C-alpha cells in the first residue's frame, strides 16, 4: 500500500526519450528500426507534404499550403543572403534542409505521445558537428591559411592579440557544443516539464485543472520554442558560414 501511495506521484519525465526498437524487444543495433526511425520518417513525410505536395499547384497566386512553403523558402533564403552575402547562397539547400528538419521535428515532437528526435544530443551533435566540420574545411579551402586570421584580432592592440587568439580559439571549438546542446536542451527541458505537469495532473484528482492550465501554457511556450530554436540553429549556421567565407574581422 505504501508503494501504491508512492506510485501516485511517481513521474517518469524522461521515459518519453527512451529509444526502443519498433519490433520486438531485442538489442538496438545501428540498423535496428526504432522509434527514432519512425519519427525521422514522419519528419521526411512532413517535409514532403509541406514543400512538395503543398506546392504542387505551382500557382502564380499561391494556395494556402503553397504560401507556407514559399514563406519558409523565402525566410531561410533571405536569412542566408543577409548574413552570408551572395556567395553564401550556394549553401542555401543544406541550410534549408537543416532548418526544415529541425522545425518539423520539433513540431512533430509536440504531438502527444510522439518521440522528439531533436531532443537527443546524438541527433543535434550530428547536426552541429556537420556544420562545424563543413564550415572549418570550407574556411581553409576558401581562404587557405588566411582562415586563421579569424583568431587573430587585428583591430586589438598587439599585446592583447595572443590572449585574444586563445580566447577566440576556445570559443571556436565550443561552438559545436553550444550549438547542439542549446537545441537538445531546450526541447528536452520543455518536454520533461510537460511530463512533470502531466504527472501532477494525474495525482491531484479534483485539483488537476491547475497543472492542466500549466500544461496548456507550457505547450504554447513549447510551440514558440520549437520555431525559435529552429531559427536560432539556422541563423548560427549562417553566422559560422559567414566566418568561413569572410574570416577577417
Amino acid at each position, binding site marked *: 500500500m505504501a508503494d501504491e501511495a508512492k506510485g501516485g506521484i511517481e513521474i*517518469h519525465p524522461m521515459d518519453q526519450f527512451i529509444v526502443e526498437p519498433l519490433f520486438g524487444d531485442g538489442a538496438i543495433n545501428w540498423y535496428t528500426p526504432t522509434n527514432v526511425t519512425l519519427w525521422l520518417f514522419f519528419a521526411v513525410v512532413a*517535409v514532403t507534404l509541406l514543400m512538395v505536395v503543398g506546392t504542387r499547384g505551382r500557382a502564380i497566386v499561391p494556395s494556402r499550403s503553397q504560401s507556407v512553403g514559399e514563406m519558409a523558402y523565402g525566410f531561410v533564403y533571405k536569412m542566408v543572403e543577409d548574413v552570408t552575402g551572395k556567395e553564401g547562397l550556394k549553401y542555401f539547400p543544406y541550410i534549408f534542409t537543416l532548418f526544415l*528538419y529541425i522545425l518539423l521535428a520539433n513540431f512533430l515532437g509536440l504531438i502527444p505521445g510522439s518521440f522528439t528526435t531533436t531532443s537527443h544530443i546524438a541527433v543535434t551533435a550530428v547536426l552541429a558537428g556537420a556544420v562545424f566540420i563543413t564550415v572549418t574545411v570550407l574556411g581553409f579551402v576558401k581562404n587557405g591559411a588566411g582562415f586563421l586570421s579569424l583568431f587573430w584580432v587585428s583591430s586589438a592592440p598587439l599585446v592583447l592579440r595572443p590572449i585574444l587568439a586563445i580566447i577566440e580559439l576556445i570559443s571556436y571549438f565550443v561552438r559545436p557544443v553550444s550549438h547542439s546542446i542549446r537545441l537538445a536542451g531546450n526541447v528536452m527541458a520543455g518536454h520533461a516539464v510537460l511530463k512533470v505537469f502531466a504527472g501532477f495532473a494525474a495525482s491531484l484528482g479534483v485539483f488537476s485543472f491547475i497543472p492542466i492550465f500549466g500544461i496548456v501554457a507550457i505547450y504554447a511556450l513549447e510551440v514558440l520554442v520549437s520555431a525559435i530554436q529552429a531559427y536560432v540553429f539556422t541563423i548560427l549556421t549562417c553566422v559560422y558560414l559567414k566566418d568561413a567565407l569572410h574570416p577577417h574581422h
Partner: protein
Amino acid sequence: MATETTGGTEAAGMPQLEFSTFPNQIFWLVIALIAIYFILSRIAMPRIAAVLAERQGTITNDLTAAEELKLKAVEAEEAYNKALADARTEAQQIVAEAKAEIQAELDVEIQKADAEIAAKTAESEKAIAAIRESAAESVKEVAKDTAKELVAVLGGKADARTVTAAVNARMKG
C-alpha cells in the same frame, strides 16, 4: 512512451546519454537528412524558385502595362482638354462673328431709318411752313376786308393802299 514497467530499472539516467543507441540514431538521422536534402534540392526548391521567378515576372509585366496605360490615359486627357479648348475658341469666334454681322445689319437699318425720318421731317416742316404762310395771308385778307368795311361803316372813304399798309404794320407789330 509505453513501457512504464521497464522504466524503473533504466530511468536512473537520461536516455539521451544512453550511448548504445547513438549509432542507431546517427545512422537513421543521416538517412533522413539525405532524403530531405534530395527532396528539397531535386523537387521542392527548383519548383518554388520557378514559381517565385514567374510571379516576379508577372508582377513586373503588369506594372509596366499599368504604367503604359497610365501614360495613355494622360495622353487621352490632354487630347480631350485640347479639343475642349479648341471648341471653346471656335464657339467664341462664331459668337463674335455673329455679333459683328448683326451689328452691321443693325447699323445699316438704323441709318436707313434715320434717313427716312429726316426726309419725312423735312417734308412735314415744308407743309407746316406752307400752312403757316397761307394762314398769314388769309389773316391779312380778312383784316383788310374787315378794316375796309369798318371804315365804310364809319362813313369814311377807304383808301385801299393805306388800309393795306396799316394792316401790314399792325400784323408786324
